[in-house]
């Protein structure tokens, strides 16, 4: 039997996934150990895991270096990879939003927006091109995106909003919701076919717990 390989996103998503994986009968002992090994395994079920940066998970899965991945929807839409998105795992919920100063509230359709700061340039570009039929200048930032409208770097931002507290404390509001975000399970298109029975069993094992 071949090994089925999972690519997991480093950090919180993995911690939250372990319970679901164990519930589906996968032995995560090695995964829970604080180890420096890069590839961890459940040899009885012939399953391997590795941890990767979230943005890399869809890449590993698309290219078939991993059969299954667990990753946030935000990364999936930003990366736009050709994958099967088979399960919404329901945790790490938030929203991908356009946000900006309170003055713009309700006026999104009338004012023209020229600069957008974001950690998600593809998401922002697609949104403004398709939904608003506008070409905007996308300014890619690596963090604290809320700062951009405050210091005049951009008119609006595209970012993840969980509770909305950071926005509120800085006088910003959500202007539009682009997409609902949560952790997803993705599968390589070929693996789904070549290892259909085993992968379907894993999917069903997890689905039952949701």
């Amino acid at each position, binding site marked *: 039997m071949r090994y089925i390989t999972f690519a997991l996103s480093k950090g919180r998503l993995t911690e939250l996934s372990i319970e679901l994986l164990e519930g589906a009968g996968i032995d995560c002992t090695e995964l829970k150990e604080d180890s420096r090994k890069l590839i961890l395994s459940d040899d009885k079920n012939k399953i391997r895991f590795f941890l990767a940066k979230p943005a890399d998970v869809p890449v590993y899965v698309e290219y078939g270096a991993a059969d299954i991945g667990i990753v946030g929807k935000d990364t999936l839409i930003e990366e736009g990879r050709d994958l099967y*998105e088979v399960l919404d795992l329901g945790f790490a919920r938030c929203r991908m939003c356009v946000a900006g100063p309170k003055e713009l509230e309700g006026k999104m359709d009338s004012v023209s927006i020229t600069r957008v700061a974001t950690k998600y340039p593809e998401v922002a570009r697609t949104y403004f091109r398709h939904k608003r039929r506008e070409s905007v200048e996308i300014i890619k930032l690596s963090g604290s995106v809320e700062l951009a409208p405050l210091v005049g770097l951009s008119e609006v931002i595209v970012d993840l909003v969980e509770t909305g507290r950071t926005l509120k404390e800085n006088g910003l509001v959500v202007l539009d919701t682009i997409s609902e975000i949560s952790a997803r399970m993705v599968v390589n298109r070929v693996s789904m076919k*070549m290892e259909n029975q085993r992968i379907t069993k894993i999917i069903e094992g997890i689905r039952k717990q949701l």
Partner: protein
Amino acid sequence: MKRWNIYTPEGVQDILFESCRQKRLLESKIRDAFRLNGYKEVETPTIEYYDTFGGERGLINQESMYKFCDSKGRLLVLRPDLTVPVARVAATRLRDEPFPIKCCYIGNTFSFDELGGGRQNEFTQAGCELLGINSAEADAEVVAMAIETVKAAGIDEFQIDIGQVGFFKGLMAESGLSEDEIEEVRELIDQKNLVGVEQVMDRHKVRTPLKRIILDLPKLFGSKDILHKINPEDIGKEATKAIENIKEVLEILEDRNLAQYVSLDLGMVQSLNYYTGIVFRGYTYGVGFPILSGGRYDKLVEKFGRECEATGFSLGINMVMMALERQKKLVKQEPEGVFISYEKNARKIAGDYLRQLIQNNCTAELDLMQMETEESKKYARLRGFSKFVCIRNDGSREEIML
């Protein structure tokens, strides 16, 4: 300024010696399979007018094509595909040819889309097109040909997934969704995104049995048993016809003893603007992408001026090479041939011996650099010769197996 002179452009590569030999060998096996099955090879130009692929017909995204101009300012492309040129030929040069026409090709294609995971911007495609028939027989023939081709390539663990775009189109026509919504559903089904499909369908009033099948579409793949889950009364005329078509194709493939390679995927809904009936894809271990894809495209040739139903497939030679390598199925070249080292006065004897070997279809090479014996042997071994022959001034011959 020659900053780039030692590099190849992104997405293209040199293929040398052993890999090149393997690739040619693979191509010749595939070419033989095509020929034995009655497909006649055609060669079309590497460059075509942009209008053949793009423009209003929009068969292929403009951003995925390599474009440049001819001397009169007309837009040209490096062909992104070989089916479209064959369709053009079928409608023009072959317009008086009786049907069916069985064409095949092996050639390089170019696309910006295909990069990463073993894909290059320049890649070799081998394919067959069966023009002028629309029947389950023809559909099955092309699927069977795809199976034969993969087998001829030396891959024995593989799977061909069959779908029928008429099934999805039929369900959508019954559902009453708008064009934009249909596209949204299509994308979600293509990604097997059950939750997404559910969210879209919840926004609409669609009668329950039909809705259930649309929601199930991402899961409708696997053995032919999935067909039992579908009640013809729920799905409308077009979708029912599509199912009948699939059943017939499967029966024919069973008759040809090929059923074990085939499974179904009714949620296969890519490239709907191109395909009109049966669609299929081939998968194997070791590569993350399909190794082949094909299907029925009855409206394509018509765009070039002749009504002609057609079906075909193309196989990615580079993908198959990668699969063979990962599956450890590439057969290494056994040492063969004779390397001839000779002393100065034996030049004529060595030359005659060389010619004689070559005439007998044996690879042979002279030691042009007149190396020392040990060095010469080392070179011969490195180049994969099986025999080393040293010819002395007096004409005596020393032979060593390497």
